């Protein structure tokens, strides 16, 4: 692995972004009131859980294909929230995983979520299933489970690849209500086409803040938004400079 090149702007930029996000967290901790806009896809989670309960059928939560990484951690955090709602109605969640480290994490998070939701006995560890580490073996396993268990709601959160449409279209054919969220840009169009609700891009990382409304998490989302505005302004300014400034000035600015 290489080390950061401090002769370029990039390491400084990353630490400036980290400092801004940290500032957001600090401001929120100090009591600054922050607002987060509505995310209809996340509002629909309760509706999906309620519908599955009414139909007396289980739900499925797929935390993506990746192993231990930030999108999967985020997916497991969302799974915890869905499980707390499911525990309230004593509903069942099936969670197939493709990574054995995630299997142990998911089992622990869902067990605690069911306990917090007031129904520890409704949690069945066998519903957290390791299917396969192979992409398409996992996809066929999930499709088989969906069909056999006749799931009423599907949640696809995490990093996905080509199997995303296979999973979402099978759920669509079964008539399940489907909510997806992924930072994998290539899979977003597939989820939009096949799911009822989709969270895209940066919304994916704001879900836990939206669900919990914890000031600290809202502060980090505020910090991220400031970073995006800063970076977009920087891109716009440098593009305009390249277009309109004379070469001598550009050379002086290092552009």
């Amino acid at each position, binding site marked *: 692995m290489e080390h950061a090149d401090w002769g370029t702007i990039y390491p400084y930029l990353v630490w400036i972004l980290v400092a801004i996000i940290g500032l957001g967290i600090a401001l929120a901790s100090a009591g600054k009131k922050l607002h987060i806009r509505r995310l209809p896809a996340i509002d629909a989670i309760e509706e999906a859980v309620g519908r599955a309960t009414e139909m007396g059928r289980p739900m499925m939560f797929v935390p993506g294909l990746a192993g231990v990484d930030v999108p999967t951690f985020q997916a497991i955090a969302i799974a915890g929230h869905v499980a707390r709602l499911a525990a309230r109605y004593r509903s069942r969640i099936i969670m197939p995983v493709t990574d054995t480290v995630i299997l142990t994490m998911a089992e622990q998070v869902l067990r605690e979520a069911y306990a917090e939701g007031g129904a520890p006995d409704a949690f069945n560890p066998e519903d957290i299933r390791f299917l396969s580490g192979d992409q398409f073996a996992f996809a*066929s396993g999930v499709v088989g489970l969906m069909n056999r268990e006749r799931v009423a709601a599907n949640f696809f959160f995490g990093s996905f690849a080509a199997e995303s449409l*296979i999973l979402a279209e099978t759920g669509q054919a079964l008539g399940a209500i489907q909510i997806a969220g992924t930072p994998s*840009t290539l899979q977003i169009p597939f989820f939009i086409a096949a799911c009822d609700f989709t969270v895209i891009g940066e919304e994916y990382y704001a879900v836990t803040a939206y669900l919990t409304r914890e000031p600290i998490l809202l502060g980090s989302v505020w910090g991220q938004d400031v970073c995006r505005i800063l970076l977009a302004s920087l891109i716009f300014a440098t593009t305009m400079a390249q277009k309109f400034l004379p070469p001598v000035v550009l050379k002086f600015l290092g552009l």
Partner: protein
Amino acid sequence: MFEPLQNPMVNYILVVGALIISVVILIALHSSPPYVRRWVIAGVTFLVGLYVPLEFYIPRHNFLTVWRDPLSDLVRVLAGFTIGLGIVNLVIVHGRHILQRTANFPFSLAFFVGFISMAFVGFLHHYKPDLWAQKPSEGELAFWSAAYKVFFEGLLLPLTSTVFSLLAFFIVSAAYRAFRIRTLEAGLLMAAAIIVMLANVPVGTWLTSWLPQEGWLKWLRLENAALWLTTQINAPAMRGILFGAAVGGLGAALRILLSLERSFSFGGQG
């Protein structure tokens, strides 16, 4: 940083010692109150999470770099242990189906047959040449190699390719739903899709081949219009989403590092 030990006895003693220490730590962690567990996990997450960026951002080979390989090995060993848990999970779920003769019992039987056959053949294919002091015959080795090929290249690969090929049909059905013109956005989507699809087939480019290759009319040629749509509309939009997600990922990583993401900080309420 660490040199391999030459003395096998010392090696075995260290392995057994490491296992005993791991078990003791696990027992201590499980028997401790939830708030202690939470603090221990948060502390370890913070220290390990801080190590990686610090090692990267301190220029060149630094005092942290020597720990990079041992830490990577530790992660691999921990992940290796969880593979056993994955197998246990599969065996429990499918074993129950077989013992209770549920409706899904044939699928579970297929799992056990596939799992045991593949593991057995794969193991013998890989280890047979050096398994025993007496070298196996050429014919025996060729048999296990052929058996492995039958299972891996003859069964597993075609099966995964079959599942992948289903994607073509799913794309058609998803496209049918997405392109139904009900709103202005769906209409624009349909128009863009027609232009890009036609530009990628010979008949499409033939349709507008009579238009001039220079001047403003060249943008009405389908191949140029499709290129404009993909590079000037689609690519910036995708990059914008990626850009937003990257900053979001940085924020989420920071929340995990500081254990602010309570939804998955283990240890129970406390």
